[in-house]
């Protein structure tokens, strides 16, 4: 999931800082065990899983220890095995793979991204949701064109757009416009991309991401979008907006 606004970044930053403080005070193993216990007690709780993952990111970044990402992946793998119908557990499982991607080598990134897609799909199979559709759709956009997956991303994002149009407007819904436009752009349908970004800007006039896209053309636009889907850059997978920006 791409970062899309200052408020989102700040929220995520606060969450990461808090998580970091917890880790620093108590040691990783103890904190991981506590956070894992909280998730295990409530496997379908999106927020509990999110808090755990954010703590993992901080801990792993602090000492560059990739084992922590692997621990989280293994934890969620067991969680979904124990609770196969917990849709949000599958969602967090997928995000756990995504969280490791920027720290991994180029080929491992492909494997992690593919595993994440599998988990997102399982979540959607269990319970279709806006966040599930947006997440999987956006994930498909990270795949280079050669893999022919952009069309699947567009299909998910179009579905997410329909879903959000039937709900009360939420600030995070702007993400769908950004990503869907990017998807059209990746399919060389610039008019549709521009139309989508314009629709989004009409609904969310403060969106810097949409303004940037509409202000750029040609190579500049390509660079903007390429940078947005660079697997070596950490994607903000914090879901905090879902409960703080209602």
């Amino acid at each position: 999931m791409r970062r899309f606004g200052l408020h989102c970044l700040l929220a995520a930053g606060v969450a990461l800082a808090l998580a970091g403080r917890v880790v620093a005070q108590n040691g990783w193993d103890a904190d991981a065990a506590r956070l894992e216990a909280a998730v295990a007690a409530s496997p379908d709780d999106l927020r509990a899983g999110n808090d755990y993952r954010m703590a993992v990111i901080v801990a792993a970044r602090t000492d560059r220890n990739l084992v922590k990402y692997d621990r989280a992946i293994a934890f969620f793998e067991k969680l979904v095995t124990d609770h196969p119908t917990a849709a949000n557990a599958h969602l967090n499982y997928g995000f756990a793979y995504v969280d490791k991607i920027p720290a991994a080598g180029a080929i491992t990134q492909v494997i992690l991204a593919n595993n994440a897609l599998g988990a997102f799909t399982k979540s959607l199979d269990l319970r279709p949701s806006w966040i599930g559709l947006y997440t999987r759709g956006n994930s498909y956009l990270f795949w280079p064109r050669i893999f022919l997956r952009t069309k699947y991303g567009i299909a998910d994002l179009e579905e997410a757009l329909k879903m959000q149009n039937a709900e009360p407007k939420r600030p995070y819904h702007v993400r769908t416009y950004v990503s869907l436009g990017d998807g059209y752009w990746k399919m060389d349908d610039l008019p549709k991309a521009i139309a989508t970004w314009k629709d989004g800007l009409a609904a969310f006039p403060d969106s810097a991401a949409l303004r940037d896209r509409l202000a750029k053309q040609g190579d500049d636009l390509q660079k903007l979008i390429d940078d947005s889907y660079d697997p070596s850059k950490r994607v903000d997978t914090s879901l905090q907006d879902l409960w703080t920006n209602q």
Partner: protein
Amino acid sequence: MDKPVNDTKTTMTAETAENHVGRLSAISARSAVIVSIVSLLTLTIGAADTPGVMKFEDIAATAGVRVRHHTRQFKGATGDVLHMFTSGGAAASAGDFDNDGFDDLFVTNSNEGTTSYLYRNNGNLTFTNVAEKLGVGGGNDAKSIVADSVWFDYDNDGWRDLLVVRFGTPILYHNERAAAFRDVSASSGLTTFGNTIAAMAFDYDNDGRLDLLFGNYFKPLNLLDLPDPHVLPNDLDNAVNGGGVTLWHSLGNGRFENVTAKAGFAGHTGWTLDVGHGDFDDDGDQDVYLANDYGTDRYFVNDGDGTFTDKTETALGGFDTKKGMNVDVGDYDNDGKLDVYVTNITDEYMKECNMLWHNNGDGTFTDLSRETGTCETLWGWAAKFGDYDNDGLLDLFVVNGLRSAGPDNYIPVLVEMITRPGVDFTDVRQWPSIGTMTWSGYQKKKFYRNLDGQVFKEMSAAAGVDNDKDGRGLAVADYDNDGRLDFFQANADQEPLLYRNVTTGAGHWIQLKLVGSKSNRDAIGARVTVKTAARTQIREVDGGNGYAGQSLQRLHVGLGASTAVPSVSVRWPSGAVQQVTAVLDRLTTVREPASSGSR
């Protein structure tokens, strides 16, 4: 054969400079033609105040070297995959084996039954293949695949010998004064099997004898008679089941001793694709950089006592996961410290970026490939620094491209395998056949002009070198002795290219041929510092830096518009320091004083 150059120099003192053109005219009637060519060229190059327009033309056909390389064809169901994994051995090594003052070329061939080529430079931009006549064409048998080569004078007799490394055992040929080559492999002790893809000669202990470092790709299993199909990388970003390296210490009696473990290299078990050396910490001995496929490159500092210490984590800031292909060494920003350029894979489906390791001078390096504009060269292979326009700044040519074939792309097929749950990457049987598919093929080469020591500009099309062959090795040399660096590009399963440098308005230059006495005769490891009013440049003689290639032994230094005689200082591997007077726009031969040395 022409009278050997070295024979004309026996009465010269260490600081004697000679007029190369004049010497050539005395050598043979053939060379008179060259004198005319060179004389004319010196009228057009070396006079500009502004940088020249870099331009090259491919003369492979007229030069007689446009002969195709063949990769090894494997039999059986897994043959297709093994063929892919061993297609890196299109190599070329420049070296003046007959001491006539012109760099010759050894070019590998790899398929069973094919022979490699020894192209003798005729001195007029044509070459004659004398491989079979002189006995160095072989090596591709049912058990072995020729992969790389190195010219080096292992016995310090003044005639450069030839090492051919293989997926198999190496072959060491003794140069019989250019009349023939004699296979001395058995007596040399170089009889250990290895899947060697890279080799370099250097004197790691400064004892005056050249040692050898082999870069081994696979672990030492005979790929042509596989006892076990689990031979491929155990991890595609962090593999530790490769062949590592092998260090051979010259004992001085024609024999070499395997000192890999003793020297501290046994812990490296990566998939080594290239080995490079240089005195990165400027302490008088040669350090080592290893480019490794499927994982972490390694940086070893020479401890000065015959051992090396792995400083990868502290020097490079951690462990990379990239697909290291090439090690070339040069001081691109003229700050007096040797930097390293490594190619990786940056393509539509993988964004690794190359590494231009800027030497910070404090034991650490910083990757400035993005900042310098040298990051993206697609599926990179060899890359060579060289001052191609003689402006005093090292430029960079990079070859790329894995496999140019049919319209279908192998990547989606490969990714299906890679993402299959539980797949065992090491099992060659798991890898899909490539058939007629293309994999990172038809890639345009990259030629970077060094603008100011900080930023490079890609100009391969303007320079005429934007070919889309499946490049592998590079051998840079001044094949026509006109003071402009040319290069030979070896291509896998394709014909090579020989790019003659026809840059107009190039700057002035000097070339230095160093001849060691107490130091190894090839002077490998010697450092030269060249000072002009505009800048100070350093160069080191290397023994095979750059993937699948070896470039000129002589040191080439561009001087730009400066017509002043530069101040030249030579630091020999023996430790001796010598001040030299070089001649502008000429080759100067420098001999190490016989009494030199502090080691």
